[in-house]
């Protein structure tokens, strides 16, 4: 860990201002990922701005009947909120499938979105990794890639985004609210929040250095049967090999997002049109994974996406949406 300075901000404006003032500053929420990366010197912030005291830990109803989730709301609290459980079950289901109870108690909404990939080549600083050291190459591409991305990847990077929560948010069309040191606010649709790796896998989002996430907003409830199916080698405490977040309506319409297959939560409109037209898991998965470029190690994910989607659609039918 590099030496760093630390301050505790008391308002979003103050936090953003501090980030503008100190080059190389980073915000710290729960710290469940950032601190690990700092110990390995993969992250080397010169300054940490603690954002746990900004008053961003409320979940409030919005005027249009949606929900505004403060950036500092812990994963455990978000998953347990009765409004979330009743109206956005896919989000609760995704959250409780992630990490462990202890980590969920600590992890924040914004931090969950900003967590970095768990690619072992990213974590091992002896290895090549374009995300950690741009231009050094990708160790995973010719190495061990059982966990890695099959769609939206590039020759520079085949890492996945590890979040379960983000997959549910993608399915729900959430929006991410931010503020900058000059007071500028914006709302970023979740589909535009995470980037694909392209030639710049080190850039995972478009937030400015002084841009602080203040909230994640959910649109008014959409109903439907809301499911999150996470497939993994062990029953708990593992990242998804493949996950499917789905909201399935009686009329056959559905929103479907995938985790564990790409650099960001993966959702394809043509696939949903295919479903609405009466398509099955096979044709829908084919649309979801159009242009997939699996490696030898993770070719099974192509099959697994289709099968998991089939499981989710069958479950939705049984639930009688």
């Amino acid at each position: 860990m590099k030496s760093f300075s630390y301050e505790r901000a008391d308002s979003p404006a103050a936090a953003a201002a501090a980030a503008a003032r100190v080059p190389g500053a980073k915000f710290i929420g729960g710290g469940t990922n950032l601190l690990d990366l700092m110990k390995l010197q993969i992250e080397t912030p010169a300054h940490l701005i603690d954002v746990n005291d900004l008053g961003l830990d409320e979940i409030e109803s919005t005027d249009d009947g949606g929900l505004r989730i403060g950036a500092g709301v812990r994963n455990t609290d978000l998953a347990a909120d009765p409004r979330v459980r009743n109206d956005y079950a896919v989000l609760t289901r995704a959250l409780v499938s992630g990490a462990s109870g202890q980590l969920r108690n600590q992890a924040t909404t914004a931090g969950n979105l900003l967590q970095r990939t768990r690619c072992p080549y990213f974590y091992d600083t002896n290895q090549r990794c374009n995300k950690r050291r741009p231009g050094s190459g990708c160790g995973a591409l010719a190495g061990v890639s059982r966990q890695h991305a099959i769609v939206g990847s590039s020759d520079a990077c085949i890492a996945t985004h590890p979040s379960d929560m983000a997959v549910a948010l993608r399915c729900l069309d959430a929006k991410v609210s931010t503020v900058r040191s000059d007071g500028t606010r914006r709302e970023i649709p979740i589909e535009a929040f995470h980037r694909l790796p392209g030639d710049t896998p080190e850039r995972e989002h478009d937030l400015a250095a002084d841009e602080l996430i203040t909230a994640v907003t959910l649109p008014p409830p959409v109903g439907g049967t809301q499911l999150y199916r996470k497939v993994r080698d062990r029953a708990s405490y593992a990242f998804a090999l493949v996950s499917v977040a789905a909201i399935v309506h009686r009329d056959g319409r559905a929103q479907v997002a995938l985790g564990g297959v790409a650099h960001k939560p993966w959702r394809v409109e043509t696939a949903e049109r295919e479903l609405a037209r009466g398509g099955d898991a096979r044709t829908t998965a084919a649309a979801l994974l159009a242009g997939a470029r699996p490696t030898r190690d993770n070719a099974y994910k192509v099959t697994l996406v289709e099968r998991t989607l089939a499981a989710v659609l069958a479950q939705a039918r049984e639930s009688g949406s």
Partner: protein
Amino acid sequence: MKFDEPAGTNPIDQLKVVGRPADRIDGPLKTTGTAPYAHDRHDVVQNQAYGYVVGAAIAKGRIASMNLEAARAAPGVLAIVTADSAGRLDQGERNTARLLGGPEIQHYHQAVALVVAETFEQARDAAHRLKIRYAPAKGRFDLEAARDTATIPEKTGSGDPAETAVGDFEGAFRDSPVQLDQTYRTAYESHSMMEPHASVAAWDADGQLTLWTSNQMIAWTAQDMAKTLRIPRDKVRVMSPYIGGGFGGKLFLRADVLLAALGARAAKRPVKVSLTRALMPNNTTHRPATIQRIRIGAQRDGHITAIAHESWSADLPGGGPETAVLQTRALYAGAHRMTALRLAEHDLPEGNAMRAPGEAPGLAALEIAIDEISEKLGIDPVAFRILNDTQVVPDNPAPPDPDKNSDQTAPEARLDAGRPRRFSQRQLVRCLETGAERFGWKRRRSKPGSVRAGHWLVGMGVAAAFRNNLLTKSAARVRLDRRGRVTVETDMTDIGTGSYTILAQTAAEMMGVPLSQVDVRLGDSSFPASCGSGGQWGGNNSTAGVYAACTQLRRLVAARLGFDADASDLAFSDGEVRTASRSAPLMLATRDGPLEAEDAIEYGDLDERFQQSTFGAHFAEVRVDAYTGEVRVQRQLAVCAAGRILNPKTARSQIIGAMTMGVGAALMESLHVDTGVGFFVNHDLAGYEIPVHADIPHQDAIFLDEVDPMSSPMKAKGVAELGICGAAAAVANAVYNATGVRVRHYPLTLDKLVQNGLAIA
């Protein structure tokens, strides 16, 4: 005490304390966080500095240059140890690769430097400032590619021969009406014990080195440390009273303890070193992967006529094979047999013992093969195993009868003509029958894929368990003080197994005092040398050592109190010493001062006259998600016959822990090899998955009543590792029974099911 004849009746047979499910006597220390583990020993010596180990960034090659300047100038840095500055080092008898590499690099994460600083954080920060340039060389990292270069290994670790042959395997196999010829693969596995390797080292002015560490084998470590540092053995003291798991990963001197000693010498003050989790899989040892070919020929009535088991593994030059064929020499009948170990060289980190080395991966393969041939024969796999039971060692033909021309005698007859070597105890059949009854085996459908519960496919599997009982010299000292307390001292270790408790039970039984009146002190090289903990040999041998010492102490007490020590009715019981005619309080013996005795158990040839093995049967029920191929274990049962069970509670913990590790081996544990770069990629507990609680819903263990007078005066045998031997195959066979998809490549991850025809409906 020489143990060379079967044990007769002795004080242990009272079973007033031994054989009872006593709680761990060290339990309160553990549950209150006060057991002093190596890294927590802030109190033992003042002024401790911290060392941070730097692992090699390449798998093979040389260090071209090292620039230490920036690191040396970093805040708090006291010393930096490298191969250049460490002085001349020898290599421990039990290490394949050097523990401090450079300039030559033998494997990835081989230690190349230790940075010593005032604080851990300073040491870690400075370590990141080392500038090391490497000249990588081409290495060999692929077992599949190395297989063709494998040769017959010179040494097998266990001392067993690399090859055996009885009768005419090839001919008999060819003539068998039912044949199986399949190849199985087991994975590289990491011990992943909870406590990382950790040590504190301190030198005194006289050149005496004191080490507080976490190690299963105190005497080996002291010897190999002295040899590596080229100092006399008596200059090294090793203490390891509490150990947070080992599984074989802490059998040997490792980099943490050597570098702590070198760091303390360089910094001229005590140094503490622990390996980071990310360093452990590549820096230390692992269980080697295997490729195993098994051929079985059987008659239509189900009798095995020919069985062959060949295993390939790889290690660094100078290393040894994974002895995966050993159990096949003793487990099933069959007149024509062949086994062979093959060893290739590669440049991955060194392989070595991990929980039940040999048998764990060996049975993982063999017991799938048995399941497969049973199915070909249309015989229930429990019945097939019972049908092919043997009460003599089938791989051990007796010497030819001199009166006959043995060359013209059929192999079966030759075996009968000599003196076949019998097992001291063998209750495999009862294990299988008891387990089948308890597990509800008759509910199993023999046709795979025929039980469905919603989207789950349900199946049951069985496997035999086998592990040899190893006899090793073990010494102890016992003292009776004026207050009547008994103190046991031995360098035996407790790696979570329950050694403290069973040694206390043994001494309490022998001296006729309650368990609460016994203190046990372990893991100190200044105590008499024990067998240590490994290969499931610890329990039987270390208690037998305490038995021997207590026998001597009883003689001293008897003499002091005026009893005839050899009187047949002399008893130590309820704090008294008595015969039919008189009794005296035990404490009276120490009126004039404490009494102390030391002795060792040493073994004659009983383990040559009788094959000493432990047996068991594993049952598993799994469900497999028909869509995703996810396998979840629902129930596990192990039935064990392993001699006298000294403490059913701690023994049960050992068995269910090992069964859990069997689930890991079956379903998820695998160090993934990057065959280009040459390292284990998933080298932390996020990437190397082991079972979590949610993976283990229900387990049970049953111990058959057994006493084995051939094994020791305790009549006990090793038991712990029996819990993993066969456990993985029971799960694998259950997966087949559930799905009809036969996977022969561990672990049975879902990709291998969904890509091999797992049917959704």
